[in-house]
Each structure stands twice: as structure tokens, then as C-alpha cells.
């Protein structure tokens, strides 16, 4: 009597048990995107900054299928290991640099996200936050929004330029920080890093 229905019911229960195992149980982890080890293998290159040939490392990020990108950072900057998807972090003697992928919801725009989400958050969380400049720019043909701000860390004044580059579903966020006294002098190098950014699957 209704053997087919009973069979379907049993198969459904088994399928739901497997689903639970994949989502939260012993087989979980397959659903969450992980950093691709290939993303952490840079290729050596050189870039001209202020008429000087500076050695750079080119990183080819392969973490999110829709958001493959390339960015170059100076070889002298010290890499900080990061397991976050799409993320690179570096420090150097007078500051730091990073690039990351930022999820932007479909029901907002990147500019709205920067002005109504990130900046209010910075005002609350970053000591001594003060906006210096905000502008819309273009990075290799991609619309970008650049926020420059002042902040204080361990009693030292810093200036940070944060650039949000539009992309598919995710935006790239390039953050470059230097001591306030060095910030102007670092601009050519920061510009080289920013202009080295490219989406690869656009």
C-alpha cells in the first residue's frame, strides 16, 4: 500500500540527513569558500616609480570565481599571512597596505555602501578618525570611490587612503596607510599599487 510514497519519504529523510551533514555536520566546510593556495604565490615583476625601477610582487587572486584579480605590492613590504578569502595584508616601516574583497548587497550601490555603512563604522571604531577627502575615480576603467582619512594609532598620526573598486557582486578594497609625515612622499608608490589592480574576468 503506497509503497512508492513510503520509499520517497524514506529517501527524503536520508537526503535531509546528508544535507545536514554537508551544511553543519562532519562534512561541512565544503560549502564555505576558502582561500586558494595559488593566490599566495606571487610572481616577481618590476615597476617604475618616480623614475626608479622598483621590484614588485604580482599576486593573482583565485579565491572567488567571479572575482579573480591581480595586484602588485612592493617586494620590500612584509606579507602578513591571511586566511581570509581574497585578502592580502602587508606592513612596512612607516605603514601598511592591504587588499580585500568586500561583499556588496544587490539592494545597494558601492557608493552608498561606503558612505552609509563603512564610514559611519570607521567613525565609531577608528581612533581619531577624520575624513580628509572623498572622491570618485577610475581604476583601470573600473568606477571606484576613494576615501582618505586621518587616524591615530599608538599616539602617532596616520593617513589612510581607502579605495573601493566596483566588481561583480564583490568590490575590491585597497587600503594604504602611512605616517602622516610620510604620506605625501608615499603617493607615487601608492598610485603604482592602485593602478596595478585589475579584475581578470571582466
Amino acid at each position, binding site marked *: 500500500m*503506497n509503497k512508492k510514497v513510503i520509499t520517497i*519519504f524514506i*529517501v527524503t529523510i536520508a537526503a535531509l540527513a546528508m544535507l545536514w551533514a554537508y551544511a*553543519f555536520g562532519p562534512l561541512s566546510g565544503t*560549502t564555505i569558500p576558502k582561500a586558494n593556495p595559488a593566490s599566495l604565490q606571487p610572481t616577481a615583476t618590476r615597476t617604475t616609480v618616480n623614475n626608479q625601477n622598483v621590484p614588485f610582487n604580482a599576486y593573482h587572486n583565485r579565491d572567488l570565481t567571479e572575482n579573480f584579480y591581480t595586484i602588485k605590492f612592493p617586494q620590500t613590504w612584509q606579507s602578513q599571512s591571511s586566511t581570509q578569502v581574497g585578502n592580502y595584508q602587508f606592513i612596512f616601516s612607516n605603514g601598511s597596505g592591504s587588499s580585500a574583497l568586500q561583499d556588496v548587497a544587490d539592494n545597494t550601490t558601492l557608493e552608498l555602501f561606503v558612505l552609509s555603512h563603512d564610514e559611519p563604522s570607521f567613525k565609531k571604531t577608528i581612533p581619531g578618525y577624520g575624513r580628509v577627502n572623498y572622491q570618485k575615480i577610475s581604476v583601470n576603467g573600473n568606477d571606484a570611490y576613494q576615501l582618505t582619512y586621518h587616524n591615530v594609532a599608538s599616539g602617532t598620526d596616520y593617513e589612510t587612503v581607502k579605495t573601493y573598486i566596483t566588481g561583480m*557582486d564583490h568590490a575590491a578594497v585597497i587600503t594604504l596607510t602611512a605616517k602622516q609625515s610620510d604620506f605625501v612622499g608615499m603617493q607615487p608608490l601608492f598610485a603604482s599599487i592602485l593602478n596595478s589592480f585589475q579584475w581578470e574576468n571582466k
Partner: protein
Amino acid sequence: MRQIFLFVSLAVLGFGFYLKFFYDVPDSQIQINFFVSWFLIIVGGASILMNLFWSGPRKKKNNDA
């Protein structure tokens, strides 16, 4: 009654496909979206199959005539 059950099952299945393929999932909710969308697809699909294969109690033949 069976038509209502079938309609609800189709709605559940459709909502599961919507969450799976069309909903913009924030990075922090990928895992829960994976579970909920597949849960609705499996339950919706199974409900439709059970509805189609279900055979209700058969009427006894009237032999009085």
C-alpha cells in the same frame, strides 16, 4: 485537498530554487543559505512526488444490485 497540497509543494520548491540561484547571499550567510535552499528543494520535490504517487482508499464495489 490534494490540489492545495500540490500548490503549496510547488511554492516551497520554487522558493528553494529562488534562494539557491537568484537570492544575493551575504558572505556571512552562505552556509545557512546552502542548507535552507536545498532543504526547501528536497522537501518540495519530495512532496510533489508523494502527491503524484499517492493513491487514496479505494471505494468498495457495490454488489447489491
